[in-house]
């Protein structure tokens, strides 16, 4: 039988606020020594009270708006009760009924086909502490306790592991564009869980869902879902039933393993947090936040195609990161010529140089204006396109301008007829066999001869002029 996977995603993203969710502690905890970003409030000492971080609410609303959600006018925090040493109060302040954002959507594209994934809700909560298990004892680091977490829950609208991966990539892109989260999966700033069930193709009933946790990379998400779908299909094929369990993805052995079975299903005993009055979100505030939203990748992609005449793939590459898109637009503006000519320099040469150095776009040592100046030198015929690549590499390494490098290294294109004629003559004299072949009608050999002239002139010769001279001299003799 053919089965169709039904997948829903739950994503947690740490928000980039200056302070924690309910206290004044510095929320930038990555790499900090254990238990240095703590205070009585985030340690949950007896007698302390939480105070809501307004910025965290704002960031959640930004994400909600970007995901086309309804923003609540009245939103309530709730206590989620469970006991674990990583939870200092014995409950997590989260949201249950009346979350900040509801009923949104996100479009994803797989194999050129766009699909709309529903967003059930996006709400705000606090992160837990981190446990380190040593032999025979465990240690707790409370730095992470109380860091604001945005939870985004999708509808079970996803139909393939690749779609799930694309959903996460798009979500990450949006969170980064908004600047509300680093959404870095490797650093745990974005974490996800998937719910997956199978049903016979054509059926509308839902199968028993399995929750898969510990998905720490886009790759894990795809592999884990592929594995889990196959596993469930095998169970069903064998006439068995899928059990409602929580699985963990084992990255080492590439398989899902049962973490918890249904008998231990939690009862979180949610109830409204009495220490925090309900939040009233004014429509003015929402409108103000909406007006400040940056252009999001989807809109930018469409604009790049329409305004700059890029093809879809070029546009896609350039909008993946806001920094790249901004760089591109800045370079285009400074350049003044065709935007289509700028795009490959960024997605080709510049990306290659960045990758080689392990740098992010934000750290690129060549300003957009400098790249534009380089392209202008090429257009003006001062240097060849090939030389341009060498010059860019040197700009990248030294931070000098293209003009400086061309001048200092004597890379200017040679268009002086006398110099070039001498070089052409020298080449023709050196390769009589090839000259003979040309005259016998193998005209394409002119390309090879051109290469020899370029070599003779160290790549600086004006290629058009060389071709003209070659053709003229070959005809003459």
């Amino acid at each position, binding site marked *: 039988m053919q089965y169709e996977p039904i997948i829903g995603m739950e994503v947690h993203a740490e928000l980039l606020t200056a302070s924690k969710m309910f206290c004044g502690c510095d929320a930038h905890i990555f790499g900090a020594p254990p238990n240095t970003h703590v205070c009585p409030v985030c340690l949950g000492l007896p007698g302390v009270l939480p105070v809501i971080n307004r910025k965290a609410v704002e960031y959640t609303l930004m994400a909600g708006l970007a995901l086309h959600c309804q923003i609540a006018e009245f939103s309530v925090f709730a206590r989620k009760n469970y006991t674990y040493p990583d939870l200092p109060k014995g*409950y997590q302040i989260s949201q249950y009924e009346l979350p900040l954002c509801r009923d949104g959507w996100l479009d994803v594209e797989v194999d050129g086909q766009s699909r709309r994934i529903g967003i059930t809700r996006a709400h705000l909560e606090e992160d837990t502490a981190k446990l380190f298990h040593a032999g025979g004892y465990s240690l707790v680091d409370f730095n992470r306790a109380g860091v604001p977490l945005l939870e985004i829950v999708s509808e079970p609208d996803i139909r393939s592991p690749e779609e799930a991966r694309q959903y996460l990539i798009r979500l990450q892109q949006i969170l980064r564009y908004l600047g509300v989260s680093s959404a870095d999966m490797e650093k745990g700033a974005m974490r996800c869980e998937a719910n997956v069930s199978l049903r016979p193709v054509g059926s509308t009933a839902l199968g028993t869902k399995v929750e898969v946790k510990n998905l720490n990379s886009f790759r894990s998400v795809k592999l884990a879902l592929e594995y889990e779908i196959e596993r469930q299909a095998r169970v069903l094929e064998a006439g068995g039933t899928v059990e409602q369990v929580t699985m963990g993805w084992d990255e080492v052995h590439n398989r899902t393993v049962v973490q918890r079975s249904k008998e231990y299903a939690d009862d979180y005993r949610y109830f409204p947090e009495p220490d925090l009055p309900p939040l009233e979100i004014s429509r003015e505030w929402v409108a103000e936040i909406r007006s400040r939203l940056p252009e999001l990748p989807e809109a930018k992609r469409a604009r790049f195609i329409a305004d700059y005449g890029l093809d879809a793939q070029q546009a896609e590459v350039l909008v993946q990161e806001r920094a790249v898109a901004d760089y591109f637009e800045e370079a285009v503006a400074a350049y003044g010529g065709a935007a289509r000519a700028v795009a490959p320099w960024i997605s080709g040469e510049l990306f290659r140089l960045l990758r080689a150095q392990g740098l992010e776009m934000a750290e690129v040592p060549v300003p957009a204006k400098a790249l534009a100046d380089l392209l202008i030198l090429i257009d003006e015929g001062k240097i060849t396109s090939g030389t341009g690549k060498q010059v860019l590499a040197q700009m990248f390494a030294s931070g000098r301008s293209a003009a400086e490098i061309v001048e200092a290294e004597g890379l200017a294109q040679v268009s002086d007829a006398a110099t070039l004629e001498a070089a052409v003559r020298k080449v023709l004299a050196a390769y009589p066999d090839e000259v003979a072949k040309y005259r016998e009608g193998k005209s394409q050999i002119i390309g090879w001869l051109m290469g020899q002239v370029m070599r003779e002139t160290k790549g600086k010769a004006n290629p058009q002029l060389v071709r003209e001279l070659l053709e003229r001299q070959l005809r003459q003799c």
Partner: protein
Amino acid sequence: MSLRELTIHEAHRLLRQGEISSVELTQALLDRILAVDNEVKAYLCLMPESALEEAQQADAAIAAARREGRLQELHPLTGIPLAIKDIICVQGVPTTCGSRILEEFIPPFEATAVEKLWAARAVLLGKTNCDEFAMGSSTENSAYFATRNPWDLTRVPGGSSGGSAAAVAADECLGALGSDTGGSVRQPASLCGVVGLKPTYGRVSRYGLVAFASSLDQIGVLAKDVADAALLLGAIAGYDWRDSTSVDVPVPDYVAALDGEVRGLRVGVPREYFIEGMQPAVERAVRAAIEHLAGLGAEIVEVSLPHTEYALPVYYLIAPAEASANLARYDGVKYGYRVADAVDLDDATRRTRQLGFGAEVKRRIMLGTYALSAGYYDAYYLRAQRVRTLIKRDFDEAFARVEVIACPTSPTTAFRLGEKVDDPLQMYLSDVFTLSMNLAGICGISIPCGFDEEGLPVGLQIMGPAFGEEAVLRAAYAYERSTEWHKRRPPL
């Protein structure tokens, strides 16, 4: 009159006039504590050395104010020796909440109310005993010892702020802070013959008050008379950004409200508060007090609070539900008591809580956990919240007709130690007249209004609407200054 018997406002006058020093006053109270606290057992922790140091600093501040001609600006609590219920955090001082599980907990931070007392240069004598996590009505649920009623040492002082009430009654401090979740300031005030004021929810910051039931808890004051209660409230009230449930309403000059005038004041008397089974002497004293108010010119109006009978069950769903979450943090991992010989994490958590909590606390955690459980939430917690709204509406309607409501504080005078410990329901009924006010979030006071046949004090409760403390204090003061009950002293 001996120094220890002074009220705060009397002591303040003498301090300002230079007739006494804070060190003398503090020493007199420390001597009193040494003399009687073996029997009363009001204090869990005594801080004689730091108290005398604070007194010295207060004296220096008073001297400086005198030199600089700023005596008028002197805070009325400067140099005044006070006690604090051991459920309110004082930085660097053990705060046990009357529980084993917090036996060694020393808060690294200050409660906002305490911070305000320090700012006023008050003197802190020590931390007073209470029912474990404020759960109880007799102070017998303290994990350490039971406090006794200064009027009869075989009887309870009430609770849960029994230590604070007994300390005030026995002249072991000039005033004290308590906390009131369902009557824990007013009921012990009534049973000990002192004044106990529970402010409106949100009037005093709860930051640093160890939570029992967050939507009901409020820090209150215990004092020898109404003027002192007004002074203490004025010192600790006010908005605090650290407590999001505190309300940004200006703090009036409560002492200025004490004009002794109640002519034309409409005083409601709720028929539901005179129930069968209440002690006849209590009913007699309270009815006489209401007549006395009428005699002073107040207009007595019968009112109805029809949902009163549901207050007790509603309270015993909401308070334990919140407590079950609030007390979940006590797992022995970061502070407080932890079993020494645990085999693993589960064992450590389970047995730490098993041995660290007393029976009443465990009972309420179980009640609350049950009320919030899947499948029961709607029937218990949610329904209780709905009825709570009805109870609040009863008060709104009553306060549309009257300025204050007068009724008994407790259905009985002080009962005997051990009398109700094995009967939680009987114990719960001791707060039947006080719980509703916490559910409604309104304010109220208990003042002495007579004695029963055995010489035990009876309390009159005067309730006001949210932020109606001035009306409550005005009525209470008018009654007090035309009666003598508050001047009687226990035969210690």
